[in-house]
């Protein structure tokens, strides 16, 4: 290892931020975190707050794990990672309840469900256990941003077609309904989220042939 100091935003570090947005997106390429992507994307507002919460939890736990990575006994490392994630999630939940009560009411159980998000464990195990805190921080932000982007896209379509609103504002005019237009009830149910994810994956792979598995 060389001892010279790496600049904070070297091209390698920038890549940590941008890669997960596209070619190594946690949802569409690694297919992680699907469960919560289905659960919280009925409307945009909760999806957005969920995305922010995941970002905070992932970035902070990545940094914490990265700091103590050399003293974690490998045999119990998964448990250590879980404890860190769980502690962070509870902390975030408590803070939301104390200071933004309205939003925490909307998210209800979903904040607790961040613990079960595979992206978190995946990043801690694959990245933070072997990299320095700053790089881990960027990796956390990057991956959470990749997750967020997909969440926002899915929730946009689901809210528009399923409830006729965007960010709780009505966008489908009443006259449409009078002509017999109806909100698509299927959009509100989880299966449709899976189909939307599928379409995003399809579009992404059609545009970038490298992502297609050769087998």
């Amino acid at each position, binding site marked *: 290892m060389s001892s010279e100091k790496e600049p904070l935003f070297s091209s390698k570090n920038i890549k940590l931020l941008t890669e997960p947005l596209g070619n190594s997106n946690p949802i569409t390429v690694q297919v992680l975190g699907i469960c919560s992507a289905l659960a919280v994307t009925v*409307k945009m507002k*909760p999806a957005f707050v969920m995305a922010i919460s995941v970002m905070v939890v992932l970035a902070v736990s990545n940094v914490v794990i990265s700091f103590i990575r050399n003293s974690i*006994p490998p045999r119990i490392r998964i448990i250590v990672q879980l404890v860190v994630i769980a502690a962070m999630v509870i902390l975030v939940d408590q803070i939301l309840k104390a200071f933004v009560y309205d939003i925490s009411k909307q998210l209800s159980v979903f904040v607790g469900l961040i613990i079960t998000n595979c992206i978190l464990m995946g990043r801690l195990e694959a990245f933070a256990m072997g990299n320095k805190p700053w790089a881990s921080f960027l990796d956390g932000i990057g991956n959470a941003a990749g997750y967020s982007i997909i969440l926002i896209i899915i929730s946009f379509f689901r809210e528009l077609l399923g409830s006729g609103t965007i960010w709780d504002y009505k966008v489908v005019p009443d006259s449409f309904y009078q002509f017999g237009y109806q909100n698509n009830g299927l959009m509100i149910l989880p299966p449709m989220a899976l189909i939307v994810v599928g379409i995003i994956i399809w579009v992404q792979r059609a545009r970038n042939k490298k992502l297609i598995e050769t087998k």
Partner: protein
Amino acid sequence: MKSFSNTYIFIFSSVMVIAVAALLSIAAITLQPFQKRNVEINKKQNILTSINIESTAKNAEELYTKFITESYVVSTNGSVIEGADAFTIDMKKEISKPIAERNLPIFVSNVNNTKQYVIPVYGKGLWGPIWGYVSLNDDLSTIYGANFAHKGETPGLGAEIDTKAFQAKFIGKQIFDESGTFVSVRVLKGGTANPESNHEVDGISGGTITSVGVDEMLKDCLSSYEPYFKNIKK
């Protein structure tokens, strides 16, 4: 890979667990007053919504003291229980008691010089509890306003019970029929309620179990106030 002794692993995990436990307890204790206040304000806002008063988290307390003139607790046989605080009564606990032992809170409000009785209701939805407040005109039958909330009903379906559109359907409905028998307000399958009936509203299509939950909650909670209503009507 470094190897670690069993002793090290034990010490490491103990230290970690104690540190995390300490951190979380400190957070819980310092944040508790804020959370409690939020819950109280939210409750006051819910009560105010049921008498059709818009409030924000900031002015809720001021409006609450302005409009809610008194609150008291009654028993299921219709008498007032002295010395109980209606605001701190936990409906979840009361509902789980046998009917005869329940303490029933009532909030009395005064809007535009008319009197309303606000009744808390509590029941089961599809995924968790649902609750709310129903305010009655001083004929003790006509609904003046209603407010429902839920813990985790399906967004877009059952969760619609906390929207204005759903709650507004209850306004003007009556919980007693012409002969004075308790009939509650039935929440029927979406689109099947008779618009001319005073005792029926449409449920939410796709949110059937939540709608049935609201139906049962109203019947269950409002009926236990019947003896008290009969007492004051006399």
